[in-house]
């Protein structure tokens, strides 16, 4: 019964978004039924639709988890976007520096590296780098909040812009192949590539970029569940989120929990870099993120800030992103931007619903701080 109640509102929110979206489609002169058939049908076709839906869902699982962990501590991390950018760049940097000789965009072999590590060492190292750097970037906002009272919403917004500017600076001035017209780094060493799932799943063509990062995303869901509900740290984070005053009386240092939650959150967001750099582009590609950090907010809210819910809502948003491509091409007027509208409406409905239940305790920390 409780589960049913938990499920009811997300479903209502999604249904409402589709209804409002349908009206929008109708107003701009297309057939909503046809549009949705196109959207959902193409996203669920095997192997291309499902393969790419899962690929698009991968970063959203990570950012959804990132937002959820912060939420559980009463923090709103809208900085996943910046965290995933610095992490993606860092993981590319490690994979370039320790990846050996590569062939650049012009087909010439180049060597920017210090060493050439084997895959068994390089891949774990690159993944660890993504987590640590993303986590550190998240922890900055946590630290500023915990020790200086600077509201995490504003600092993470600012840190997003700073992150984007910094990585674009390093890409443009230091790690671009000279003469390359695209703002991207040199390719990473082949040892750092993680395999595509097409290597393991019969019938899945190699052109589908779905890769091992998807498995890591599912693993991350399990780990986040264990962390939040089965460890002392997770308990303290949730206690801080539920009632910071009570948590403090209970002997929990809420400052430490804030920094820890933001670090874990940033580390999860950083894993997006693994999917993009090690699994897909095989280089850092400037402004690759399709608003994954912000969509993560929708994913977390719709998934009730629970790992299982997040898998489902990430799949839904991944589906929308995949289905938007044919909608763009095969309807008269509707463009892929319909997806943004659907996303926004889902967020609005879910956000307003949180208040219906009086669950503002979750935002207890928002009240205590300065902005």
């Amino acid at each position, binding site marked *: 019964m409780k589960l049913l109640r938990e499920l009811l509102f997300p479903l209502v929110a999604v249904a409402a978004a589709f209804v409002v979206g349908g009206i*929008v489609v109708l107003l*701009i*002169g297309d057939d909503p039924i046809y549009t949705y058939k196109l959207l959902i049908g193409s996203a669920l076709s095997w192997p291309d639709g499902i393969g790419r839906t899962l690929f698009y869902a991968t970063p959203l699982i990570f950012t959804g988890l990132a937002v959820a962990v912060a939420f559980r501590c009463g923090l*709103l991390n*809208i900085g996943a976007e910046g965290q995933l950018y610095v992490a993606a760049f860092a993981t590319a940097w490690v994979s370039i520096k320790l990846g050996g000789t590569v062939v650049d965009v012009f087909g010439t072999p180049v060597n920017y590296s210090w060493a050439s590590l084997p895959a068994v060492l390089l891949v774990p190292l690159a993944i660890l780098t993504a987590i640590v750097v993303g986590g550190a970037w998240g922890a900055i906002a946590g630290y*500023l909040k915990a020790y*200086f*009272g*600077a*509201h995490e*919403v*504003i*600092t993470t*917004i*600012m*840190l997003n*812009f*700073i992150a984007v*500017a*910094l990585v*674009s*600076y390093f890409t*443009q*001035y230091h790690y671009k192949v000279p003469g390359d017209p695209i703002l991207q780094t040199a390719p990473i060493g082949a040892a750092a590539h993680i395999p595509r799932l097409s290597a393991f799943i019969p019938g899945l063509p190699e052109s589908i970029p779905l890769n091992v990062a998807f498995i890591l995303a599912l693993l991350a869901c399990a780990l986040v569940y264990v962390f939040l509900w089965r460890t002392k740290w997770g308990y303290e984070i949730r206690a801080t989120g539920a009632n910071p005053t009570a948590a403090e009386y209970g002997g929990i240092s809420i400052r430490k929990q804030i920094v820890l939650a933001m670090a874990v959150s940033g580390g999860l967001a950083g894993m997006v870099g693994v999917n993009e750099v090690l699994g897909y582009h095989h280089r850092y590609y400037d402004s690759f993120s399709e*608003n994954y950090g*912000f*969509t993560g*907010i*929708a994913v977390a*809210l719709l998934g009730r800030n629970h790992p299982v819910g997040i898998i489902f809502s990430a799949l839904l948003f991944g589906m929308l992103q995949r289905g938007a491509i044919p909608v763009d091409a095969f309807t008269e*007027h*509707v*463009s892929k*931007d*319909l*997806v*943004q*509208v659907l*996303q*926004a*409406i889902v*967020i*609005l409905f879910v*956000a*307003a619903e*949180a*208040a*219906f239940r009086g669950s*503002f305790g979750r*935002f207890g920390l*928002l*009240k205590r701080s*300065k*902005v």
Partner: protein
Amino acid sequence: MNEIFKLSLIFSTIRLSTPLLLAALGGLYSERAGVINIALEGLMLAGAFTAAAVTHYAGNPWIGLLAGILAGMAVASIHAVACIRYKADQVVSGTAINILMIGVPALLSGAFFLSSGSTPQIPKDNLIPWTPVVIAFLLVPLTWYVLYRTPFGLRLRAVGENPGAADAAGVSVNGMRYAAVLLSGALAGIGGAYLSIGQSSLFTRNMTSGRGFIALAALIFGKWRPVQTMLACLLFGFTEAISIQLQGVKVGGEEIPNQFIQIIPYVLTIVVLAGFIGQARAPRALGMPYQKER
């Protein structure tokens, strides 16, 4: 460094500060009344798109400007209803508005202009390059006067600082908040309209490119006060002007990376917010929905 260089720098500082100032003053009304407005970016986009589209059809920038204002208010009303009536988390609602306003203009321009996110060019005669600048800077003393010298301003501030007391004194807390959020939509709408039919001559996809957030930064940097906020906007406009002027300029054979100038507003805001330079104190009831006691 000659005279012309300096003069053009001043002009471009003023022009680049204008959209920031309009949006920041909008945010000021909303936040002083206790409603967080990170939707400024989206509100600006609403104003920018509508102003350009309507000016294209009507052939008159004033009708376009008016339409931009109304569009800003319409989108702000979504934020207002979500935050005030339904007590949604204000940051989450603002984020939703920002995502919505990336999608809606692109969707509409696809439908109306068969383009992927931009409106047709508007002839030069139909642009308003200076009026919004004048409006923006006149609004600073006006906002100061309204905020500190009128009953409306007193109520607005009371609602943002201590809604309970304001309510007890007979002020309609939610009514004031609706008014404030709508006002912020109108001002951010002008700011957006200035981008599309003042500074340039068409709407392009995501043309605000973060200005709504810089406006928010200026508001915090200016400690939620009109004059200080204006100075912050001028400072941030100046950094943007400098970064444009320095593009391609080499100092000692080295190009100055644009990115380092671009991040100045963001770094300064964090520094101020963390209390390294003075104290930035937000309105006390900022972010809290008001629940009447029974």
